[in-house]
């Protein structure tokens, strides 16, 4: 490669780029190359407002091969998988799929996983929920629970070990 990023002295990583493409090809036909950086994905990104996840930048970085920067960024873990970017991309691309591919590479190459994300995974594995039901504030400014409001108890998965098995199987099959 004859390209160097002078801000970080990083060079494009052809191998990692190819790996991302291979992963995405399993999910869909198109790979990030068709992205023309209109920014429609970031305009509508639910995670950007809170965490500055920029899907169009993920596309550009993976397209040009600056993968390490992506793997080390905390933002990739904040995607909420709303799929808006995939639904509305004018080039039929799916930044969300690229983000997942990058996350998979990060895990398989032993990168630090964002603690918020690993907590969430632990919660799902342990209880079947992303988070446990919490108190909320009602219109009169009182903290209330589901019980207080007369709502039924949320039922968790009936057979937790079975769910865990399925999740682990899915996880190991996805991590290539």
């Amino acid at each position, binding site marked *: 490669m004859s390209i160097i990023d002078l801000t970080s002295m990083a060079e494009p990583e052809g191998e990692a780029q190819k790996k991302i493409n291979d992963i995405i090809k399993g999910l869909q036909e198109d790979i990030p190359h068709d992205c*023309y950086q209109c*920014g429609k994905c*970031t305009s509508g*990104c639910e995670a950007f407002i809170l965490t500055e996840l920029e899907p169009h930048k993920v596309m550009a970085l993976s397209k040009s091969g600056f993968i390490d920067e992506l793997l080390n960024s905390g933002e990739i873990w904040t995607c909420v998988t709303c799929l808006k970017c995939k639904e*509305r991309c004018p080039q039929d691309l799916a930044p969300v799929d690229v983000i997942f591919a990058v996350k998979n590479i990060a895990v398989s190459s032993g990168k630090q996983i964002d603690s918020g994300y690993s907590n969430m995974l632990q919660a799902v594995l342990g209880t079947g929920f992303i988070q446990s039901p919490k108190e909320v504030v009602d219109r009169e400014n009182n903290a209330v629970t589901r019980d207080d409001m007369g709502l039924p108890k949320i039922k968790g998965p009936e057979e937790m070990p079975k769910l865990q098995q399925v999740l682990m199987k899915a996880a190991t099959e996805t991590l290539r």
Partner: protein
Amino acid sequence: MARIGVFICHCGTNIGGVVDVDDLVKFSSELDDVVYAADYKYMCSDPGGKVIKDAIEEHDLNRIVVTSCSPRMHEPTFQSVIEDAGLNRFCLEMANIREHCSWVHKDEKEEATKKAKDLVAMAVRKANTLEALTSFQKDVVHDALVIGAGIAGIQASLDLANTGKKVYLVEREPSIGGRMAQLDKTFPTLDCSSCILTPKMMDVARHPNIELLTYSEVTEVDGSVGDFKVKVKRKPTYVDWEKCNGCGECGQVCRMKDKVLDKFNEGLGKRSAIYVPFQQAVPLKYTIDPSKCLMLLSGKCGDSPPCQDVCELGAIDYQQEEKMIELNVGSIVVATGYDMLEASDMYEYGYSQSPDIITNLEFERLISSSGPTSGHVHRLSDGEEIKSVSFVLCAGSRDMDHKEYCCRIGCMSALKQAYLLRDHMGEDLEINICYTDIRSFGKGYEEFYRRIRDGKSNFIRGRPSEINVKEDGKLIYNIFDTSTQKLLEINSDIIVLVPPLIPRNDSSELSRILRITEGADGFFLESHPKLKPSDTTTDGVFIAGCCQGPKDIPDVVAQASGAAAKAMGIISREELESDPMIAWVDPDMCVGCGVCVEVCPYSARELNEVTGIAEVDEILCTGCGGCIAACPSNACIHKNMTKQQILRMIDEVI
């Protein structure tokens, strides 16, 4: 006895770089009836032609196989070459080893050479049964037909009529003018659209050589180049145009006044059931909309229809009926224009959620002084003045879910509209232009773009993901500006979407009638994207303007003049040489069942009343092959493309 020469072209490295030409020459020279085989770097060049001519003389060749590119490219070239050498031009057979072989198998050289051998062998097998055919002359009709009277059709008609030829100009709306009549100003010169269009419309109306057929549609086209028979349906206007003087009193008293959505104003204004589309209409004659007129719908309009009462000239005629007109023309120019993509198709942009989200064509009507708001742009929801406006470019174009192509006019139309708004409403108006790439490619366009980049308007390099309508009806959207890396929240009084131009919704029907082709994008397909931009796959039918693809006005006018010149090239001739590769009926085989008469789309077949067998009209037959497939007794034969010839070719390869 056939003495065949095979001539193999390298086409530089196009063929030579893939196919083993030396091997192919050796293979060819060993085929039955082949007495000579040679290769040359560029067979289509003058020296290449000399190779063929010399060989014909030296080896007394009488059938020639040229193995090169597609016959669409160079068949006429090689036909002329062998004609110069004294052979009949139809004693030529071409094997296409470029498009059909070397181009598509460039990575499989051995296989490609093998395939090239098969193709040559097939061509040789056919060549030794080629018959010498003679062309004959057919008379040319010197009149022309132009379909569609927007700026393209108007320009083509005027160019043709100015050469002294008679032109029939067919327009389906009551007035000519088309899309350009709807526009306020034109970029980049800011000429008033009507001011430069209406003089041309008047020229059309006054021209002695132009016969204007408005409110009419082409329903049937028969015949072929030089002699088309065209049926045109004149829809009833329910007003005697001989009598109507366009005074407009009928429109004023119509009981449906201000109740009918006005198509010319993109549905933003209302008109009467009896109407002219716009004030500068040509011809300035009234038309009754049969889907809205109470009299035509129910036979009753109050005590008596007011339009009839008020018309002193007695022009109203509810009994008028549709008329069919038959025309005979030598060539046809198609200039049927475009539609706009339905903005509601981009659901995320909320077009159907708020009247304040409009399209750029609707904006043209709003800012036009002849439009429904007399040129004053305001919020359509509550009539409030606007303090901010946003333009969203590429709304549905360059988009795999809608239209893949660039609409070519969106950027410039938005820049022009931004300029006009600034001009009308002053410095305080906030203008936001959300763009992906500004494409200002035309002459003077980049200079115009620079004028708008004056620091007063905001250029936001990005695209909104969605537009939301707040509870109070105001519009809000988020957009990530990729140049400043900031997510912006923008409140806008109105939002102008710039959707792409698309083919007319019924263009498939017209392409069927005219037997021309549509491209993958639905626009009429030109014969060659660069070198034949106005030709179609049907000889004598030419295309101009946005029916061929999105274009700005300068390109439309240029193409229209080009199409007119092409049409002129046909109708200015006294005679055309007809193609002798047409159908022939073997009288010994024909049983006179008449199936061929029914299937022939060109009316080129008749049953002879005396003998009872089918006969081909050699002038009308185009060699389409329909009868050959249909004939149950194998009596229909395509000259130099007989079943026997095709079977021999198939035998050769299997």
